[in-house]
């Protein structure tokens, strides 16, 4: 042991965590006089005795120490308060075991582990039990009274059966079982009538077995359900033992109990014989899954049943295949031909695979690297002579042993056995290394075992970073930089979690710096908002591109800031501004106007007014008013065109209103085109002309418009008059088309005669005078036109035309 203890262990309150866990000592606890100089001292050591931390105890009287499954130290005080410390004596939190306990004081306490978590059981001065099965989800249970109990029980234990936690207690020669509701007297089966009073009891690691020690020196062993007796042993010592624990191995048939007195250790099992050891100094027993750890001031040992594989191999003169293989390999190294003999012997029995398996298994149980190596070498040697031996078990054992050897090093001090390691799982082991702040080792192990980054390295780095932010002696810059250097862009790192930790420690600036490294904006933004860094949150939200996130912040800002500042903020963020505009478009039209106003965006303001002249104004005057506003804004925006157009619109609207009143027909919201059309259709040519002039409708369009309307009105007379009013700016083909559209071939023909020569063919085709069309085409000597005419000909009716064209085409070809 690396520690340098001056005190005897017996003078200290001791608690050692299972699975090679840490050891806590509370010194000076039993001294009654509480002078300043002799305050109790709480010390925590690794299992190898390396001091981890110590703290001067300033709270109340401690009755019991115990470790939780996650290696936190529980200090149970006399007043029922339980204080929780971490491995480094840093206070985490506390809770109370209830008023009853507070009044009657804690006389004895036990910490126990079940599938629910870590529990605490208390025996109070009123001889009542209280317990909780999970300190992380505190539910206090007061157990029923034991009838007639006038003094403290001589011994008691917590049992867990079928997920129910119960208490077994002994008073003299009586055993009581306390469950949630009742108290019953029980008798262990097969116990001799003269066994005497119970003075000590032990429950196995898995709660399956129970051992009872009586004042006659008799040890009863059986199942904890008290239904079966496994054996009884009678020893010569009657003094109550200091400790009694089970020493078994999972899946083994052998069961033994280790009993310790001050200077004596006795191992008793299902046999008449027992093994005795002499203890040189004060020792403390720690029950483990597969054995018992025994430590004293100077040593730390592991007592366990020899596993079958090891026994087979190392038994003196063993002829087991594993033993032979080990021997064969040794001979082989000595370059002796005996290697072959041994090998042959195994192979003849067809046991080589078994031999390799044994060696691999046995290697796992060994603590001494040299022994591990020689066993593994033997396995590897044997494997060479096998065809299909799956290599996984060998590879994995090598890897696991490498990890185990590393953590068993006294500087790390986690003496896990192979079985414990498998039970614990690598994930939990890594957690424990992290708890001890052994980050580099944990990372090395992850890399060595090739765990995925997400499960392994990233997680450990994140823990490291969370620890790092608590180092108050370093500046924010240093810490942030150091963290980023280590973590970089490692996938799966949550910088926001680290930042949240920093913020919890009151280091807002550091948190912000760390958040800079967080790639997931979805994570950054809420924390920034929580830290009231909304501007920054806005930046981050925009960077992410997630518009919903931007909305989140914008609406948050809207509530947080006054309107002016809010607008100013948005102004600096065009993306947010556009999104907010969209929001306003649907939700708050007036705000939209204010936004444009603030930006002096006159174009958009103009558009806004145009919009409202349609959507919010109903009466003509209101609409004209809105449009007038639009005109003003368009002018301010130097959009001459839009301003003029809108002025025209106002003019038109007013005029339509007048027309509507005068002619009693709806005109409002017709386009200019439709208004004029409608006027012509009704024969109001004067007014139509008026509009034509007022709005400077281009001639071409007016002519199109007028002839279309006249044709629809079938006012052929007026159309002819119009066609002669001056030279048509659109030519006369449109006249032909429009007449034909209204099925007036007669009128159409009139205009067909007036079209320009280039359009003549088309015009004749339109009025279905293919013969004349052909003539025109031939006259033009235009082959395309001739083809066009041809395509319109039908063989039945137009054979003459076809003939004519073909002749003409032939002639042109000749030339």
């Amino acid at each position: 042991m690396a520690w340098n203890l001056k005190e005897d262990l017996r003078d200290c309150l001791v608690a050692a965590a299972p699975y090679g866990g840490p050891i806590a000592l509370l010194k000076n606890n039993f001294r009654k006089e509480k002078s300043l100089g002799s305050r109790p001292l709480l010390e925590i050591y690794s299992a190898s005795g390396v001091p981890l931390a110590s703290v001067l105890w300033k709270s109340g009287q401690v009755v019991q120490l115990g470790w939780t499954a996650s290696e936190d130290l529980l200090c149970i005080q006399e007043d029922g308060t339980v204080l929780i410390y971490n491995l480094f004596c840093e206070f985490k939190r506390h809770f109370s075991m209830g008023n009853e306990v507070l009044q009657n004081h804690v006389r004895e306490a036990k910490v126990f582990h079940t599938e629910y978590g870590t529990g605490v059981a208390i025996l109070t001065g009123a001889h009542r039990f209280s317990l909780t099965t999970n300190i992380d989800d505190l539910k206090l249970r007061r157990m029923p009274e034991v009838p007639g109990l006038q003094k403290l029980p001589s011994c008691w234990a917590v049992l867990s059966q079928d997920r129910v936690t119960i208490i077994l207690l002994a008073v003299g020669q009586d055993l009581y079982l306390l469950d949630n509701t009742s108290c019953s007297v029980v008798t262990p089966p097969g116990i001799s009538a003269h066994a005497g009073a119970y003075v000590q009891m032990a429950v196995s690691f898995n709660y399956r077995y129970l051992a009872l020690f009586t004042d006659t020196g008799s040890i009863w062993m059986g199942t904890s359900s008290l239904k079966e007796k496994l054996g009884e042993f009678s020893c010569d010592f009657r003094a109550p033992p200091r400790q009694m624990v089970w020493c078994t191995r999972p899946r083994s048939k052998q069961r033994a109990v280790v009993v310790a007195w001050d200077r004596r250790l006795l191992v008793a099992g299902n046999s008449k014989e027992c093994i005795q050891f002499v203890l040189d100094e004060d020792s403390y027993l720690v029950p483990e899954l597969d054995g018992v750890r025994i430590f004293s001031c100077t040593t730390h040992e592991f007592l366990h049943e020899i596993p079958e594989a090891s026994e087979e191999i190392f038994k003196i003169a063993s002829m087991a295949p594993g033993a032979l293989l080990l021997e064969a390999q040794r001979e082989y190294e000595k370059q002796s031909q005996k290697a072959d003999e041994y090998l042959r012997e195994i192979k003849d029995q067809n046991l080589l695979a078994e031999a390799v398996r044994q060696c691999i298994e046995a290697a796992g149980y060994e603590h001494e690297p040299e022994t591990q190596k020689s066993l593994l070498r033997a396995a590897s040697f044997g494997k060479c002579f096998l065809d299909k031996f799956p290599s996984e078990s060998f590879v994995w054992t090598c890897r696991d042993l490498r990890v185990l050897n590393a953590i068993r090093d006294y500087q790390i001090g986690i003496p896990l056995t192979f079985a414990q390691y498998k039970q614990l799982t690598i994930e939990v082991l890594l957690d424990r290394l992290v708890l001890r702040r052994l980050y580099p080792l944990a990372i090395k192990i992850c890399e060595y075992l090739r765990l995925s980054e997400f499960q392994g390295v990233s997680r450990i780095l994140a823990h490291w970073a969370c620890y790092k932010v608590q180092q108050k002696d370093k500046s924010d810059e240093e810490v942030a930089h150091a963290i980023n250097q280590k973590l970089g862009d490692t996938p799966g790192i949550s910088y926001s979690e680290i930042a949240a930790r920093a913020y919890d420690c009151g280091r807002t600036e550091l948190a912000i710096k760390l958040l800079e490294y967080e790639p997931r904006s979805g994570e950054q933004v809420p924390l920034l908002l929580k830290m009231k860094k909304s501007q920054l949150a806005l930046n981050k939200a925009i960077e992410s591109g997630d518009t919903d996130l931007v909305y989140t912040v914008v609406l948050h800002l809207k509530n947080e800031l006054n309107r002016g500042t809010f607008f100013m903020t948005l102004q600096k963020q065009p993306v947010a501004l556009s999104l907010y505009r969209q929001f306003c478009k649907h939700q708050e039209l007036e705000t939209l106007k204010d936004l444009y106003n603030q930006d002096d965006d006159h174009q958009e303001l103009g558009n806004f007014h145009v919009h409202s002249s349609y959507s919010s104004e109903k009466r003509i005057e209101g609409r004209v008013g809105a449009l007038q506003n639009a005109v003003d804004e368009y002018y301010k925006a130097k959009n001459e065109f839009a301003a003029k157009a809108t002025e025209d619109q106002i003019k038109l609207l007013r005029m339509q209103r007048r027309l509507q009143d005068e002619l009693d027909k709806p005109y409002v919201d017709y386009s200019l085109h439709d208004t004029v059309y409608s006027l012509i259709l009704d024969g109001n040519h004067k007014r139509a002309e008026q509009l034509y002039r007022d709005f400077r409708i281009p001639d071409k369009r007016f002519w199109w418009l007028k002839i279309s309307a006249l044709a629809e009105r079938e006012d052929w007379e007026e159309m002819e008059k119009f066609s002669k009013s001056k030279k048509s700016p659109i030519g006369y083909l449109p006249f032909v088309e429009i007449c034909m559209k209204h099925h007036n071939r007669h009128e159409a023909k009139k205009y067909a005669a007036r079209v320009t020569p280039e359009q003549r063919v088309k015009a004749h085709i339109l009025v279905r005078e293919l013969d004349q069309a052909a003539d025109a085409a031939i006259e033009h000597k235009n082959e395309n036109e001739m083809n066009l005419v041809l395509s319109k000909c039908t063989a039945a009716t137009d054979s003459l035309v076809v003939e004519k064209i073909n002749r003409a085409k032939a002639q042109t070809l000749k030339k």
Partner: protein
Amino acid sequence: LSLSLSVTRIHIGLTLKFRGRDVRKSPAIVWDEYLTGPFGLIAQYSLLKEHEVEKMFTLKAGRLPPADVKNIIFLVRPRLELMDIIAENVLSEDRVRSPLRDFHILFVPRRSLLCEQRLKDQGVLGSFIHREQYSLDLIPFDGDLLSMESESAFKECYLENDQTSLYQAAKGLMTLQALYGTIPQIFGKGDCARHVANMMIRMKREFPGGQNSIFPIFDTLLLLDRNVDLLSPLATQLTYEGLIDEIYGIQNTYVKLPPEKFAPKKQGEGGKDLPTEPKKLQLNSAEELYAEIRDKNFNAVGSVLSKKAKIISAAFEERHHAKTVGEIKQFVSQLPHMQAARSSLANHTSIAELIKDITSKYPFQYSTYASEDFFDNLTVEQEFMSGIDTDKVNNYTEDCIAQKHPLIKILRLVCLQSVCNSGLKQKVLDHYKREILQTYGYEHILTLNNLEKAGLLKLQTSSRNNYPTIRKTMRLWMDDVNEQNPNDISYVYSGYAPLSVRLAQLLARPGWRSIEEVLKMLPGPHFEERQQLPTGLQKKRQQGENRVTLVFFLGGVTYAEIAALRFLSQMEDGGTEYVIATTKLINGTNWIKSLMEKLEPPPF
């Protein structure tokens, strides 16, 4: 490759199943009508039925139809106006009967705080037991085509500076990469492309668990802003599929056609029972014939159809030669396939006839306004694209306005001219605008403003017109186009080679460095990013193995552009296969429509 994309379909389908189970038993689904189309592509109605979806309704204002169900799921896009309808539904529900039903809301593709706030304001947020999202980012439309079907993506990105759809696109690309491996190379052109690439790189860092260990299917991702190539959607598409879309509009692979041509030809009945319901057809590559002709220039479709007709009738003739029982049996076994082929041929012959009536160079009769001048319109478009008279007021356009042709047609022409001239001179622009406002109404001033903001319509600022340089360098206009057996992508517009696809083509060979100058003339930055792959996943290309490029059109893609990319995929010496993704399948008409401001005059 098409096989692997259909995995996405299944993947999404399964997720939906799971979702359905989430909300206990026998729910009724209230659909946002817009979603029924896209959802139809991934989860058939029958599939939903199997998963105990009791009833389906369309989301409508007012009261929900009565249905004896415990759970009601609203399946909606995150839009405020839909929230109002839902609120109305929920509120009127409570008034009629005691609150017996449970409400749930499933946002597609993303939950939105804004919408939840709206529901809260309306006082109904608490009524929803579950509020979830269904991340339907990219919907498989065909073996090589994915679309987000976000109808207003272009408007939001380029007009309103709302990049929600880009975020969704980046998310979709991440999902795609999770399924098909990290794409090692990313190229892009345009501001939105840059933004999406940035978000992708960012999101990659956010992914926990590190490297994606899937062998990458795509070699390259090309992100293209729609505003890099505003021209292609404005021009009339001349592929078979493109024309169907231009004329009838394809929605979620379905098209509705006038029924006359599809009347069952039975003798004796005459024209008595002409169907009145439009004929609805699904169009995708699962149909053998359609796969063959969809991307051909329409002028090349006729010959294929007649060839097919001969083959099929020859196949049917076979029965006369079938003598032995065995031969007859074999013939019969092929019948279903032949009959399917025959009905497919009949359908497409009818469609081709319909289109022919409209596009025919020599229309026999001036029947309808819209159809009479398809050819004239096309001629003008082609003049603009080849750079003829783009700087003055166009007579044809003027005449069309004077005859009040559909506004969208006019806007397409004017915008096309503007784009082909790098903007119009003030006088020309103002003239067009005035003509439009006077003819179609002053309310369109806002639409015109939108088009200007989007860059579709603009004032020529510099005296230089860049378009001819771009046209020449990128060979956007090809005079000797071969429509029947094309040797260049320009066949899809009978002369014009879509700029967007040219960019993709030049990227593959010889690389963008060769057109650096032109790239600078096009809006937005161009860039290249590399995503590191673990060494095990790096491709060792075999001789003759094609590279696979995913082209993502931000702001929409037309069928003609898709056809051009497919043409490049099929080129023997092309060396690159293309898969296409987009925010929305568009054509000039629905694209311009999405940019129009709808101002309804108040009721007087």
